């Protein structure tokens, strides 16, 4: 029944998916945190930039962003992100596009977390003489992160599934392989089911694990 799988590197394709997810998650966590810091910070220019970035990026379809990284950044502007093999260039462009897109959502999740930190925490931190960056780093963000593990899990699961869009610029991840297999084999339903199962295998444990983490790190008040 599964003879047709012969000759396809199913695990390899999902491994690319995992890598895409990992690097994009890392990137969007860092960039999203910086965006959130800008949005709550005291500098009007940074606040304006953060707000504009989130508003614009959040409302553009991911496909448009991913295709732009390839057609716009690479083919028109010649930005290859320090790689010279096509597969590496496309992979890095996809990570860039996914990061740019996902960080807008990370920023907003985190900002809602920042709003759950009582003002008194900030006032107490000010009163002992901490500076704004210190307050954000030591007092506010750690508490904010703990309260948004749940929402960030949603973002991570969405990101995992969004990596399929990288197929649009030829990154050899799972969705690209699926398209190829559907074209070559007469097993449409079975192939779809296999890939659906593959994605569930990635996202379900993530959700369970982070759900447990959310409970564990929750700040008791």
């Amino acid at each position, binding site marked *: 029944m599964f003879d047709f799988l012969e000759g396809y590197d199913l695990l390899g394709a999902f491994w690319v998916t995992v890598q895409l997810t990992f690097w994009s998650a890392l990137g969007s966590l860092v960039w999203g945190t910086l965006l959130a810091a800008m949005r709550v910070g005291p500098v009007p220019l940074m606040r304006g930039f953060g707000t504009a970035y989130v508003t614009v990026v959040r409302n553009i379809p991911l496909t448009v962003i991913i295709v732009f990284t390839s057609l716009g950044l690479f083919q028109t502007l010649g930005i290859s992100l320090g790689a010279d093999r096509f597969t590496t260039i496309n992979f890095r462009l996809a990570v860039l596009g996914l990061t740019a897109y996902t960080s807008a959502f990370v920023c907003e999740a985190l900002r809602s977390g920042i709003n759950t930190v*009582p003002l008194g*925490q900030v006032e*107490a931190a*000010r009163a002992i*003489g901490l*500076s704004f960056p210190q307050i954000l780093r*030591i007092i506010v963000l750690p*508490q904010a992160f703990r309260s948004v593990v749940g929402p960030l899990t949603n973002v991570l699961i969405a990101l995992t599934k969004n990596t399929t869009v990288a197929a649009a610029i030829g990154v050899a991840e799972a969705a690209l392989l699926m398209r190829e297999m559907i074209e070559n084999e007469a097993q449409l339903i079975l192939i779809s089911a296999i890939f659906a199962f593959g994605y569930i295998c990635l996202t379900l444990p993530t959700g369970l694990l982070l759900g447990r983490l959310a409970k564990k790190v929750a700040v008791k008040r």
Partner: protein
Amino acid sequence: MPDPETPGPKAPDPGTPGPKVPGPKVYGRQASAPGDGDALVVLRGVDKHFGTLHVLRSIDLTIRRGEVVVVIGPSGSGKSTLCRAINRLETIDSGEIRIDGRPLPAEGRELARLRADVGMVFQSFNLFAHKTVLDNVTLGQIKVRKKDRKTAEERARSLLDRVGVAAQADKYPAQLSGGQQQRVAIARALAVDPKVMLFDEPTSALDPEMINEVLEVMRQLARDGMTMAVVTHEMGFARSAAHRVVFMADGRIVEETTPEEFFGNPRSARARDFLSKILHH
């Protein structure tokens, strides 16, 4: 029948209006409180509005080194705002605030440095919820005063011991009672070696049986010579620990005198009205 506005034997020339007398004031515990030359906190003509509400009306106040000033008054009189303005948790519209001779900076690193010199204890404790009691007390020492962790922990443990919660050092704030939390908050504020301590209604959120343990720590602090400004409704504390009582109403300092004088012989009708409401029930 004596004129009620005339404060008895110490009254100045009857022609001079009572509470607004300029010039040197007589303080009951002048002996223990240093002279005017040693002003630590000085407010001059401080004004503040919340929208259309005029919460502070040209406030002049001087707190000298080693002095314990208790600010009392009806709610909404601006006493909390006054307290918070001293370390700029509230901005002011006009006027000047000086700490140890230096004007309060508007923002930035300078302000942070100055705030470390002004300890603050809040009504709602505001301990850092994600940090242990010990970390709450070491944080400022390490990040602001740049002490190494070992020195900071030693100091933190001795402070926690001093306020009587040494056994709770490794717990999280939510595991402590209100009274214990507030005592940790006092230790946290003391840990950065402030020149003056501000208390913004430190016992108002506490269960009655826990009020005394906090007040006792504050009394001890006062006996040790800490400069303190205390906003409170605890008249017993004002009587026993204050060098001076500042009575505020409607954003103004209405009366400023010794506790004996204030409780025994209040000059203004506003203060008499306030005292009659809180002392006889």
